[in-house]
């Protein structure tokens, strides 16, 4: 898992990032964990994650996402995904996480939603 683009705006409050690759192995999980942890610690509240290049997530990857979903919620923040690919989307449906974590077809829609949060 690689974080290919990071764009922080609104006085360090909002973050836009693109992820690339798989979320399966411990190393892949660790790299995403470091990313989330770093920016949460810096005080970022709203995370917009572009998932267009994420090909596969397994259950432990999902666990990591839920862990940070909860941590972000705990600081009154929000995390949303956009451009989620078919396989990953199916996993979110199957695990019902699509009911918890907002997913949008486009970045624009995701942005609009975050602005209201």
């Amino acid at each position, binding site marked *: 898992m690689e974080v290919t683009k990071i764009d922080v705006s609104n006085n360090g409050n909002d973050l836009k990032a693109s992820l690339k690759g798989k979320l399966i192995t411990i190393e892949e999980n660790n790299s995403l964990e470091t990313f989330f942890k770093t920016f949460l610690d810096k005080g970022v509240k709203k995370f917009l994650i572009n998932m267009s290049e994420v090909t596969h997530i397994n259950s432990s990857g999902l666990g990591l996402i839920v862990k940070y979903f909860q941590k972000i919620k705990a600081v009154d923040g929000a995390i949303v995904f956009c451009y989620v690919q078919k396989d990953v989307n199916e996993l979110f449906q199957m*695990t019902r996480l699509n009911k918890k974590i907002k997913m949008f077809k486009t970045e624009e829609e995701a942005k609009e939603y975050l602005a209201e949060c």
Partner: protein
Amino acid sequence: MSDELSFLDEDDTPEEKQDGERWKVLVVDDEEEILEVTRMALGDFSFKGKGLELYCASTSNQAKKYLEEHSNIILVLLDIVMEEDDTGLNMVKHIRNDLNNFEVRIVLRTGQPGYAPEREVIVEYDINDYKEKHELTAQKLFTTVVSAIRSYSDLMEMKKITSDKERLNSELNIAREIQFSVMPSNFPLFPERNEFDVLAHIKPANEVGGDFYDIFLIDENKVCIFVGDVSGKGIGAAMFMMTCKTLLRRELKEHKDPAIALKQVNQFLFEEKTNVFATIFVAILDFDTNELLFSNAAHNPPLLISKDNNVEFMEIPPGYPLTMFYESEYSNMKSSFNKGDYLFIYTDGVTEAMNPKGDLYSETRLKETMVNLNKASLNILHEGLLHEVSLFSNTAKQSDDITILSLKVN
């Protein structure tokens, strides 16, 4: 215990502990003068706040006796030519091979290098230094002892780390054995039942992992199966898995309803506040009516294999992994089986098996393989699949447990 003492053997006898405050050095030489000079030269020796405990032996037997009585001698200053020309060299063999003491540092001292040339001896014998007696001034002797202490301390520290690691590994192996012993493996489990066949295999990854399954009868005419995968590895995951499996079996026996059982277990485990979670597929087969009642907590969809070899992923109810959210609800679905149909459940160790290039085995490959495999018996099917997955992975290390379970209606 101070830092300086931390490398001392914990098994020291109480008697030895009393002089544990000093570095133990054994000097072996048949010339009384040399012993005396050494005693004088090292008389005021002190390093890291500790002095020396000097043992002097003028015969090899005396030296052997000291070595046997004191396991934590750090250095032997050893004369080569004593009773025999090679007494010192034999002593080296005795220390390393008979006493199996590889930690004590050995420095050979000789006045007659012609008897045991340095180049040959240092290569042939497991010694740490070779000195000619005239070289060993008081200062050199001091340096020799200090460097021996340092290297002995490092060795003991390394030895301790290695033995800690070995102990931990053996504890992990025990944990793994316990973990596997709670899963039924004595197939056929129900030899008196002709209505169905059931078989499960677990191929564990290297560490204590989190896959589990269970198979048991809950009624005269009902068999219950489940397969689960706990996130994470190690003792924590294994303990969580045991709790989860035990609770789920109890709830299933009580409610005979997969969705209710999952909900109950989820709430109980959520209250335990663990950081791990689990995906589980649960099914109950009524083998009078051949109806399958099943529920799912985010586990991979199983495969349905019909008797005419049509292979499809099963439509399953969605559901959160266990322990993620307290309020999780689960629902049941039903499916009718015909004689000769199979249900094939697996964990993501199968579909996420990786080859050296990093490609995943994938759902697509699994489905194709299941179409083509020989299905003469469940055993042949399972062995075939495990073989295919291991061919695919090739030299890549198995990073996750692989679990497969098949249930066939006869």
